[in-house]
């Protein structure tokens, strides 16, 4: 056969797991420190406030715009170029009196001949609700997944996959906090997608671990897990690569609005791939998975099969 049969790699993942744990621990601690010291740079979706994106014919004069805003006595304003120097993003913290009219008066103040590209106003109450809903969504997604995995596999697998997910979410949030990239609703959506993706990866590995436990006579969990990781390695890499390819397209071509969304997914896919190899399997190993744990489910299914 001329087919190039690449040999299954024999990388000793399992025995290197201590290094991975140290690496993960450093990342996690750094993320948590960054999150608790400087926190996330929350967008107006969560803080409430006003955002105006305007397009100018020529290069916009940011100083002039800032001057006008200062004159009108607005507090907590942020004026910056958005993508190009003809487009300007103006953000305002919630003012003492926050209302949708604010944007109208600012647009009026900026004068004629500008192109209003985007206006967003989020009232303080809505911001609070979106924050709560976002947190809840994350929680419910995790719980739903926990239940499904516990039902399909075993509780140790469920805990292992949740550990990997929490690991991924904290690190992505940590990177957003460290780099002070704006965290808005689309980034939250991206993080939930990362949860889905990372889990996808983890499940594939777990599936293989279970299959190997059942198909071989070996009882030692370490070599079985290591085999599973090696057998699924090329798939893990392939899928990560295709996903990264489309995300890079989205990151570079999708425009400013989708930029941090694509960024969050890019980081998430890399971290998620790493965690499904190291974190999830180390976790089930630490929880003491064994061949015996796999058997009952097989017996049950045979029982069902043998029923008349």
């Amino acid at each position, binding site marked *: 056969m001329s087919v190039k049969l690449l040999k299954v790699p024999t990388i000793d993942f399992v025995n290197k797991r201590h290094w991975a744990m140290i690496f993960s621990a450093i990342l996690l601690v750094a993320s948590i420190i960054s999150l608790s010291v400087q926190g996330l740079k929350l967008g107006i979706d969560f803080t409430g406030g006003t955002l105006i994106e305007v397009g100018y014919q020529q290069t916009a004069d940011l100083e002039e715009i800032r001057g006008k805003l200062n004159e009108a006595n607005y507090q907590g304003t942020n004026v910056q170029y958005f993508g190009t120097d003809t487009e300007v993003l103006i953000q305002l913290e919630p003012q003492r009196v926050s209302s949708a009219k604010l944007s109208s008066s600012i647009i009026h103040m900026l004068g004629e001949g500008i192109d209003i*590209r985007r206006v967003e106003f989020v009232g303080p109450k809505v911001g609070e609700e979106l924050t709560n809903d976002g947190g809840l969504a994350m929680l419910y997604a995790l719980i739903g997944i926990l239940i499904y995995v516990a039902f399909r596999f075993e509780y140790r697998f469920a805990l292992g996959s949740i550990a990997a997910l929490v690991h991924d979410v904290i690190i992505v949030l940590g990177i957003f906090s460290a780099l002070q990239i704006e965290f808005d609703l689309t980034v939250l959506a991206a993080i939930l997608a990362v949860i889905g993706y990372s889990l996808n990866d983890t499940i594939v590995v777990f599936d293989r671990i279970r299959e190997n436990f059942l198909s071989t006579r070996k009882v030692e969990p370490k070599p079985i897990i290591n085999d599973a990781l090696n057998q699924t390695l090329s798939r893990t890499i392939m899928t990560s690569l295709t996903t990264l390819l*489309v995300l890079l397209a989205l990151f570079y071509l999708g425009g400013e609005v989708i930029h941090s969304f694509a960024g969050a997914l890019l980081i998430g896919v890399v971290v998620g791939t790493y965690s499904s190899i190291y974190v999830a399997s180390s976790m089930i190993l630490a929880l003491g998975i064994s061949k015996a744990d796999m058997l009952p489910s097989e017996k049950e299914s045979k029982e069902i099969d043998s029923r008349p």
Partner: protein
Amino acid sequence: MNHYSGWKNALIAFFLFLSALYALPNIYGSDLAIQISNAGDASIGEQDLAKVELVLTSNTVDYKSIDLADNRILIRFEDSQSQLSTKSLLKTSLTRNYVVALNLAPSVPQWLSDLGGSAMSLGLDLRGGVHFLLEVDMEAVVTMSIDRYYNELRPLLREDRLYRSIRKEGNSLLVTFKSKESKQQGRKLIKDELFDLQIVDDIESELQLRLEITPAAIKVSKSSALKQNITTLRNRVNELGVAEPIIQQQGTERIVVQLPGVQDTARAKEILGAVATIEFRLVDEKNDLQLAVNSGKAPAGSKLYYFKSGRPLLLKSSVIATGENITGASSGIDQNNAPMVNIQLDNAGGRSMLETTKEFLNHRMAVVYIENKVETIVENGEMVKIRTKTQDVINAATIQGTFSNRFQVTGMESARAARNLALLLRAGSLSAPIEIIEERTIGPSLGADNIAKGFLSVLVGFALVLVFMAWRYRVFGLVANVALTLNLVTIVAVLSLIQATLTLPGIAGIVLTVGMAVDANVLIFERIKEELKSTNNIQKAISSGYEKALLTIADANITTLIASIVLFSFGTGAIKGFAVTLSIGIITSMFTAIVVSRAIINLIYGGKKVKELAI
């Protein structure tokens, strides 16, 4: 082995044919159009079509086509010049019960739309437009109900002179009776007549009764306030002339308003949120104005008002007519080139106006502009609602002749103010103040940018994956590519069929699906490769590769599906759009990546003596 039966292949082909068919409408562009619909609930029929056609032909308007479907008339145009000029022509020549709005009409061929085919509906972030979330001030609703019961309670107890005083205290009414007997009698009257009131505080030895509105009645008045506001908003949006607006209740006290394609968002905001009305009152010319201003107290039967300029004026307490009596209003310009509003009153208002103008000829009458506003402010970390009621005199003029139900009001600040007032008077007033608590406006240029960029990133991401897969898995990679292409077509078909709204995050969801959909094929192909190592039976390797990968694929996809369903149920706008395409993509990819790719592989290799696999 590796052979799908004829009917199975036929079924797959049929599915793919359906997908292609329902994805097809999206390749047709759209025409510039004017949409004419009825402002009320009445339907649009042939006679309306004839009326419009008459206007068009008598003014020799150049248009592509006109047709009547789905209760609306669509006139298509070649260019925006004739579209815009025809809109203003129709607005002036048609009566007010028609809504004339600019629209984009998809130019899907007739046979296709007869089959139920339609293009995907684009979200506001792609086509431009405004999204508002409005909150009805429910506290004000309760206060207004208390006022209403206060006004009902007094005449009820006055008949037999039962009470000493009735006071409003917060959300309750405090009645003090004259004697124990009158209290007895009053209690019975209230129980019999006003069943929406409940007695909450009744001490036997005292002459007082505390009344509150029952929770059930409060619930009813809240929901009817919400419904009335939705109706009013619908009227106002109709007045603005928006094609395909969405006005929907959300929860128990919120209303979502989406206006695709609206350019003048400032005006939309002014119109939607305004709780403005006018009142007509006589000027009190007997009492001393200066005295009232100095003491800050108006004499009995009068009230002190101010012009916007700050000039004071004493007006009589009794109202001649209010905004509720107004049946028609239009703006215009009077002889002095000043903006004005033509008012038309109903019978009751007209009668009262006629009597007043007869009796008080050569006296002065004033028009008071009343506006209720509610805003949320943050004070020391607490959210507080502040309500302001402004009452400005906009005009006070001598009654120079008798008139009843048709007259003009002048004294408007600007032509725009006159236009807005006329619109608000026509559309009716809101039954409770509302506040815009969220706004998302996307300008048309950003919308077009978003479409272009979204489309480009789908295309590039897709192409990269195609190349990568073909390089890595050769023939099998090409099969996966066919499956992936079909997956895209199927996603578009499903989105078009269920008319889910496509947003920019939705496009991102499609891009992500493209990347993740090949995962199923990767899993299968890697498995086949593995099987090939342990067996020389190529057919067996293919079939067990598919079989063994199947459960893994299902598990992996179901968990992702759980995450995206959670996203869908918790997400608002942007996130929902992402969750929808992601979920659809996951489901369709299972079909294309497993079933369709297998069918193709079977056609290529199935049942044949194969020496090697190009994988």
